């Protein structure tokens, strides 16, 4: 592996860890708001930061290393209860994640990371919390047990006692060969009811084949409940009572021999840097495998007695998306080979004496085709990632923006598992981020305002994603103030975009669509968070570039909903090949609803525009030969209407011939043609033929917007939309 590769690998891994951290912190934030404490999550975050520190050191990211180190100390204090979790502490943790991100990407636009300021912020929250030093001596716990508890375990023990949770002691005997799975099973069974504080091996039992463990649990359940939950493993369960009550009920002490082989550790020892895994002091040398780390447990299964495995836990590989692009191109070339083979077969068929070999070639061709489409599906599948990847990033932004603006916002996400092409996910983050900033800034009101308006103080921002055919729909909905139609109209008139009379003719939907025009802002509402030089017009352009469409729906007073409809992938698509004035064009099949024969008598003219009625709805027509200025249109010839539809917009494209459906690899047009509207790329059809691929979303936008505005009588707006 070259150094560059290794660095890539590091960046990818670090990115993954940071995303995980971000997720866990959000969960932690939520738990904190609901008044729960979740020690396992803090541990998870601690582990993540620790791993990040390790790899940052390995790759010479010293700044990153320094931040992780400082944060690790704070997290250690947190999990040991020396610092309690507050919103301020969470702020520092979130800031840490932001800093990691910035250090990794070395974002030139972002402000430089002020490490000293950050270290100071950490110090500020790290001031030790007063420790409730309730003695553990009241409990019938063997001092030899207490003396080997790690600081963390002791903290958990104390916390549980403080909260009045009952302690239980469980004795189990596991076979050395299966200890990992048995322990895992025990954890799973206990989890719904109890927290396992520690488990200590005892050397006594089993003659080398077995191992006895003493497990200390804390649970609010009764002895009976817990015992039945633990099943066969729960036979030796007893309650640990306070000395003052019934010390006689303790299980006989001799069955829990002191763990003499384990070096005892003063409980006051400062927390060491190493990860949790190595911190547990009680793993005896005879213990098989790393029984102390849950994650490591499955590793040791195949090889008991092997304390360390170098085998990677995950069976996944990270791949540069460009490599997949390249593979996709190869598939495209193979598709051309396939059609060339088809042509050869046709030629061969002319020769009567070659019938046998023609048949054979046909068979081979079919097999080739099948495998090729499997290959293609496989590559497409690999490119798919869940939208949750971008949602997680947004959740972080939401929390930050909401706190900056003293608004209370809860995020509700559905459909995070919906999968979309990696490239699309990447391109989505900026537009989504902008929409969300807008929603918090302009949409959701301050808690006070909300209460005055009879709404809950806590605003809700919903991110919903769901697949719809070969598209994915993403909705961003807030329950905020919504948009005022009057104010939008007023702004449009003031900016000279239209007259009052013209504005009167617009439907509410058309008025709302005004926000997508370049430079359109309701001045009074602009602030610096959403006004970072990008407006909704940029959002729309970015979405269109992905072949998507954005729609807005807003009710003044009750909220705004933006709906984005996107194709699932851009790499390879099924297309309908058509001919216009003898030239081939490809229309993505995802945008095609149906194709019908155009009977000239069907065509009517409404407001200067040709329409046909299809299934009782009026469909506006666009004659592609006219739009593209291709020759003199011959109205007498037979032609077809390809009904294209995206979101709730429909348009009939009039073409001369339908050539059939074909899988195509879309290739970008050169920069010199990037301003030409109506095409999303071109595709090689083989035989030196190149067909332009129609940008259905763009055409719908262009043609429908134009007529809408034309109807409203304003050519300037139409210009704005066309050149958007």
């Amino acid at each position, binding site marked *: 592996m070259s150094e560059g590769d290794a660095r890539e690998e590091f960046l990818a891994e670090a990115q993954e860890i940071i995303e995980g951290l971000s997720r866990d912190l959000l969960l932690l934030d939520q738990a904190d708001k609901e008044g729960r404490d979740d020690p396992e999550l803090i541990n998870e975050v601690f582990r993540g930061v620790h791993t990040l520190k390790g790899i940052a050191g390995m790759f010479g990211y010293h700044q990153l290393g320094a931040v992780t180190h400082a944060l690790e100390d704070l997290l250690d204090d947190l999990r040991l209860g020396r610092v309690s979790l507050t919103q301020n502490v969470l702020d520092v943790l979130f800031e840490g994640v932001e800093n990691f991100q910035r250090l990794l990407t070395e974002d030139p636009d972002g402000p430089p990371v002020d490490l000293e300021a950050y270290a100071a912020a950490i110090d500020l929250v790290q001031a030790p919390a007063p420790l409730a030093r309730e003695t553990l001596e009241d409990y019938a716990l063997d001092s030899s047990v207490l003396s080997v508890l790690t600081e963390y375990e002791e903290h958990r023990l104390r916390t549980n006692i403080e909260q009045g949770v009952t302690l239980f002691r469980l004795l189990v005997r596991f076979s050395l060969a299966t200890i990992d799975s048995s322990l895992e099973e025990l954890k799973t069974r206990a989890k719904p009811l109890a927290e396992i504080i520690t488990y200590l091996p005892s050397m006594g039992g089993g003659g080398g084949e077995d191992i006895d463990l003493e497990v200390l649990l804390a649970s609010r359940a009764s002895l009976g409940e817990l015992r039945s939950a633990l099943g066969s493993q729960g036979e030796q369960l007893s309650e640990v009572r306070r000395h003052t009550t019934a010390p006689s009920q303790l299980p006989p002490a001799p069955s829990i021999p002191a763990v003499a082989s384990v070096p005892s550790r003063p409980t006051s020892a400062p927390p060491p840097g190493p990860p949790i895994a190595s911190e547990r002091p009680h793993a005896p040398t005879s213990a098989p495998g790393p029984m102390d780390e849950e994650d490591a447990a499955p590793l040791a299964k195949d090889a008991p007695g092997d304390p360390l495995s170098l085998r990677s836990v995950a069976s996944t590989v990270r791949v540069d998306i460009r490599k997949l692009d390249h593979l996709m*191109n190869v598939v*495209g*070339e193979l598709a051309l080979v396939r059609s060339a083979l088809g042509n050869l077969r046709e030629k061969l068929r002319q020769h009567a004496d070659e019938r046998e070999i023609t048949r054979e070639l046909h068979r081979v061709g079919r097999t080739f085709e099948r495998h090729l489409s499997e290959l293609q599906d496989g590559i497409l599948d690999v490119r798919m990632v869940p939208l949750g990847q971008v949602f997680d990033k947004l959740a972080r932004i939401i929390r930050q923006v909401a706190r900056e603006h003293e608004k209370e916002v809860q995020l509700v996400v559905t459909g995070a598992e919906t999968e979309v092409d990696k490239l699309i996910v990447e391109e989505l983050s900026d537009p989504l981020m902008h929409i969300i900033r807008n929603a918090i800034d302009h949409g959701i009101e301050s808690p006070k305002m909300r209460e005055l308006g009879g709404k809950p103080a806590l605003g809700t921002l919903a991110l919903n994603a769901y697949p719809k055919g070969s598209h994915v729909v993403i909705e961003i909905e807030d329950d905020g103030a919504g948009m005022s139609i009057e104010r939008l109209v007023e702004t449009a008139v003031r900016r000279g975009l239209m007259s009052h009379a013209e504005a009167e003719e617009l439907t509410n939907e058309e008025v709302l669509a005004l926000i997508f025009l370049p430079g359109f802002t309701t001045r009074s509402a602009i602030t610096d968070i959403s006004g970072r030089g990008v407006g909704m017009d940029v959002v729309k352009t970015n979405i269109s570039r992905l072949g998507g469409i954005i729609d807005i729906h807003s009710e003044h007073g009750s909220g705004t909903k933006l709906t984005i409809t996107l194709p699932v992938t851009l790499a390879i698509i099924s297309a309908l090949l058509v001919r216009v004035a003898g*030239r*081939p064009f490809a229309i993505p099949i995802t945008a095609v609803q149906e194709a019908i024969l155009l009977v000239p008598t069907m065509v009517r003219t409404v407001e200067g525009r040709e329409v046909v009625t299809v299934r009782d709805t009026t469909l506006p027509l666009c004659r592609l030969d006219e*739009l*593209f*200025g*291709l020759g003199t249109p011959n109205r007498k010839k037979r032609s077809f209407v390809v009904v294209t539809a995206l979101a709730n917009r429909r348009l009939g494209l009039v073409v001369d011939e339908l050539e059939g459906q074909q899988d195509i690899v879309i*290739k*970008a*047009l*050169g*920069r*010199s*043609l990037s301003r*030409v*509207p*109506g*095409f999303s*790329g*071109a595709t*090689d059809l083989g035989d*030196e*033929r*190149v*067909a*332009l691929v129609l940008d259905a979303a763009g055409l719908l936008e262009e043609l429908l917007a134009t007529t809408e505005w034309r109807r409203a009588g304003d050519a300037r707006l139409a210009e704005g939309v066309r050149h958007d």
Partner: protein
Amino acid sequence: MPAEIEPENAPQSVRDVLSFTLADETYALPLESIHEILKTPPITPVPRAPADVLGIISVRGRITTVLDLRLRLHLAHEPASARARVLLVDSGVELLGLLVDAVQQVHRLNPDEVELSNMVSGELADYVVGIGRPGARRMAERDATSTEELLILLDPAALLRRVV
């Protein structure tokens, strides 16, 4: 293509150019700016593209824009003949194809055979760096007034600048 030229320790000022014809005039581009010469493949026109864009072709799977060099130089458009060729030239941003009437030959121009002149005026002046007179010395002995071997030397950077 460059392989046809023998590498030599020629002084910097000696330049190799490829000459081609457009509307009965002979033009030339620096040889090193030309990546490839293609027999004109079927060109797919792009509706609503700028006027001098003829369309697109696929060069080994890569979509390449082809410009009509006649229109670029404000000459009358004519349908491509069988001798027409597409020169692939790097614009710095992308490879572009330039359609020419016919490709002639490679000339090696000595410094005294190049006239860095501004005798061309108008819009063409932007694209022209000078006039080449290959074999000027040889020709001077015979007929100095002959215009047969006049090469209008084009600047590829200027030629392609306005495209992108």
